[in-house]
């Protein structure tokens, strides 16, 4: 028992009557020693399911000497009025930050982006919005009575001004893969059946089917707006999950919010675009929050001491036979929730775990690994959930994804020529101009710093709670690195799966750091002001060639509308919204054999080999070459002109670096009728 005594219910009246006579004198002498309210026994009522967290103040350290203990500092009374700074400061800052966003969108010139990406062209209004959003969070956090709705609103504004900044200043979703996934949804929306022989991701079709259903139910024919605003929306949901996890692991009223903000600040990984893994992370966090929250329990040694870790240095464990005896005679831990609530949580957790199986390839293994760790150390009730998740994945993979592993087993085992996850995720991407190299080095440094901070937090957590399970939870997803052939994306996923726990541990370290000297909070606030602009720099580092314009989207849709049935439509390089439509019909993703998966790798040989009927050129392809691959400026124009001059292709659309080239029909045989011109084909003069 610590120096702080906690009991439930009222003081025992019988004990009081028994002690009334004989112990009156003793009690009187003891009362003077317990004169301080902080040292009196505090009687707590048993909490109900909806009771707020009750904090018990710890004893005030007594100075050496025999004098009376000093009175504890008075807690701020609820009726004490707050300064207008605390009442109005955060709302005003939040409103100002949001007002800056339209100005930032209007004054940012996206056409000038280079290897430094969005940060180099972002308007000063955008940077001011970021600083105001951070100030809003800090002011509310420092308030004597922080308001939960205001902290929630501040978090939303912070996400909008940082993660959501590209969505604000760019008119379309900026990520090529997001448009590809949108094309997958479009393919499923046609007849409700995923196309075969196109892409391995179709073997996990739940996300595509879900959004195809939403799209059809809404009567929409495209998801452009959803794609644009998906990243800030899904990061907001993730932040809620991190907040809930941090409440369970850290306690307190401020630290969970800091954990959510730190998670947003360290989430440079950009797996939050419109994708199955973004939804899968939501499901993962839901299950993890259940396991570490309402289902949490702790396997304690009922004898009072554990063999390892020892409660304190020099503690001697009880004999083994005595621990076993006490353990056998003690009833098991009873959960605090009513049975129906517990059953509802089991149901929801099972639903999330089963839904994960057909949604994403990797995420089920991450959550199963984390649940196994928690089950082994006895940290949650409902270990059957591990079996439910495991069998859901096995049944789905063995039966529904059978064609995948029958034909593409090398994606699991790895082919001999495949690069490792670290090589593909880092070293192969370390190319480009000065800005690109700087951004990519920052991307390598950030996870390292995150892990260092988290290890410091794990040390603090260990000293505070004698618990190493959280750092194990963060490390478990790293075991997935054995799937070497998954490619460089795997490294990002592994970091992302551990990031919620890593940030929570980091906040524990920062909290211990700030408690030493409260003035250090100013340094932490300054660090926050530095972190979020850095986030915009890192996340937007590839925007020179990941930016998608409205013209790109319209041009692509025009190309698919004009394409003859069964003809192939391909981009010169795999950037831009080239697969927004026609997946499986015009674009089968697997046509690039012989090193020609990307035509730009060896343009004329590959175009001769693949012979696409329609070729798409985007400004982003031009930027990708100049920024990333050291191509000369205008290299796509040169390719385009040479193709047209050779008579192989003709342009049906040209505007700057954007163009649609259509393959010319071979010359008709003498006597054969001339082919009719393509309907809607419009010759646009070259700029």
């Amino acid at each position, binding site marked *: 028992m610590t120096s702080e005594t906690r009991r439930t219910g009222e003081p025992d009246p019988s004990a009081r009557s028994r002690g009334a006579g004989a112990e009156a004198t003793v009690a009187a002498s003891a009362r003077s020693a317990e004169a301080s309210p902080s040292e009196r026994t505090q009687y707590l009522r048993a909490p109900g399911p909806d009771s707020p967290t009750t904090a018990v103040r710890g004893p005030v350290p007594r100075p050496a000497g025999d004098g009376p203990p000093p009175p504890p500092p008075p807690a701020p009374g609820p009726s004490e009025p707050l300064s207008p700074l605390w009442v109005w400061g955060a709302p005003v800052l939040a409103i100002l930050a949001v007002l800056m966003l339209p100005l930032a969108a209007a004054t940012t010139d996206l056409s000038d982006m280079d290897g430094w990406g969005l940060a180099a062209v972002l308007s000063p209004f955008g940077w001011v919005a970021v600083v105001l959003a951070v100030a809003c969070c800090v002011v509310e956090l420092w308030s004597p009575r922080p308001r939960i709705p205001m902290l929630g609103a501040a978090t939303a504004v912070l996400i909008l001004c940082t993660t959501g900044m590209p969505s604000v200043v760019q008119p379309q979703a900026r990520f090529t893969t997001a448009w590809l996934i949108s094309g997958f949804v479009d393919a499923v929306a046609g007849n409700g*059946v*995923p*196309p*075969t*022989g*196109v*892409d*391995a991701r*179709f*073997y996990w079709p739940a996300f595509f089917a879900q959004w195809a259903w939403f799209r059809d139910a809404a009567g929409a024919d495209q998801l452009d707006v959803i794609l644009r605003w998906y990243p800030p929306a899904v990061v907001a949901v993730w932040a809620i999950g991190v907040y809930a996890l941090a409440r369970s692991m850290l306690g307190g009223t401020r630290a969970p919010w800091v954990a959510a903000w730190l998670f947003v600040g360290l989430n440079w990984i950009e797996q939050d675009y419109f994708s199955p893994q973004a939804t899968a992370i939501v499901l993962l966090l839901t299950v993890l929050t259940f396991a570490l929250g309402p289902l949490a329990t702790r396997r304690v040694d009922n004898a009072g001491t554990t063999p390892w870790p020892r409660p304190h240095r020099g503690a001697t464990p009880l004999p083994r036979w005595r621990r076993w005896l006490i353990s056998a005679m003690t009833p098991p831990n*009873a*959960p605090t929730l009513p*049975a129906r609530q*517990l*059953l509802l949580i*089991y*149901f929801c957790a*099972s639903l999330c775990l089963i839904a994960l199986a057909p949604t994403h390839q990797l995420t089920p293994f991450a959550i199963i690994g984390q649940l196994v760790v928690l089950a082994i150390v006895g940290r949650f009730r*409902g270990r*059957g959930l591990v*079996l*439910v998740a495991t*069998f*859901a994945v*096995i*049944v789905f993979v*063995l*039966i*529904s*994804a*059978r*064609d995948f*592993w*029958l*034909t*593409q*087993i090398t994606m*699991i*085992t790895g082919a001999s020529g495949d690069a490792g996850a670290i090589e593909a995720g880092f070293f192969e991407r370390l190319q480009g101009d000065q800005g690109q190299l700087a951004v990519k080095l920052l991307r390598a440094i950030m996870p390292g710093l995150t892990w260092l901070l988290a290890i410091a937090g794990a040390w603090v957590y260990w000293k505070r709670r004698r618990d190493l399970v959280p750092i194990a939870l963060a490390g478990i997803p790293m075991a997935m690195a054995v799937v070497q052939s998954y490619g460089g994306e795997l490294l990002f996923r592994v970091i992302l799966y551990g990031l919620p726990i890593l940030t929570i541990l980091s906040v524990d370290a920062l909290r211990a750091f700030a408690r030493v000297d409260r003035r250090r909070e100013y340094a932490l606030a300054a660090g926050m002001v530095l972190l979020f602009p850095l986030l915009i720099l890192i996340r937007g580092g590839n925007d020179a060639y990941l930016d998608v314009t409205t013209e790109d989207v319209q041009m692509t849709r025009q190309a698919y509308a004009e394409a003859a049935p069964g003809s192939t439509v391909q981009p010169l390089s795999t950037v831009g919204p080239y697969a927004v439509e026609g997946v499986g019909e015009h674009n*089968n993703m*697997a046509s690039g*054999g012989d090193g020609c998966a990307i035509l730009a790798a060896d343009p004329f040989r590959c175009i001769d080999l693949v012979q696409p009927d329609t070729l798409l050129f985007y400004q982003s392809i031009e930027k990708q070459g100049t920024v990333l691959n050291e191509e000369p400026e205008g290299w796509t124009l040169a390719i385009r002109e040479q193709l047209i001059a050779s008579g192989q292709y003709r342009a049906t659309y040209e505007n700057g670096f954007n163009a649609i080239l259509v393959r010319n029909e071979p010359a008709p045989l003498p006597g054969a009728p001339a082919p009719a011109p393509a309907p809607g084909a419009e010759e646009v003069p070259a700029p």
Partner: protein
Amino acid sequence: MNGFVLTWIAFGVMLALFAARAWVVETNRGRLTTAGSAQRGLTAAVAGSVVVLVVLLTLNGGLTLVDLLVNGEAELTAPADAATGGAGPGEAPVDPAAPVDPAPVDPPPAP
């Protein structure tokens, strides 16, 4: 009814038994009959359903997958599931990324 459908049914039964057992365990919590006959019976039923599911999974793809992982190739005896959009029953599945084999060409006749 093929093995795949049976496996899905066994999975569903296992989930139902898990749910029933959770209901019995949690709603009997705090009573004296926490390890009553219903709970013992459901525990045995859950264990049985897990065993049946493991057997069905082994027979419906498990052995093939292990064979594929260990040897790099497997003898396909079970049909692919048509519901996944793959090849029809009894047909070899289509490899979307595999290069197409050239058609066999007879050697030219000797002059």
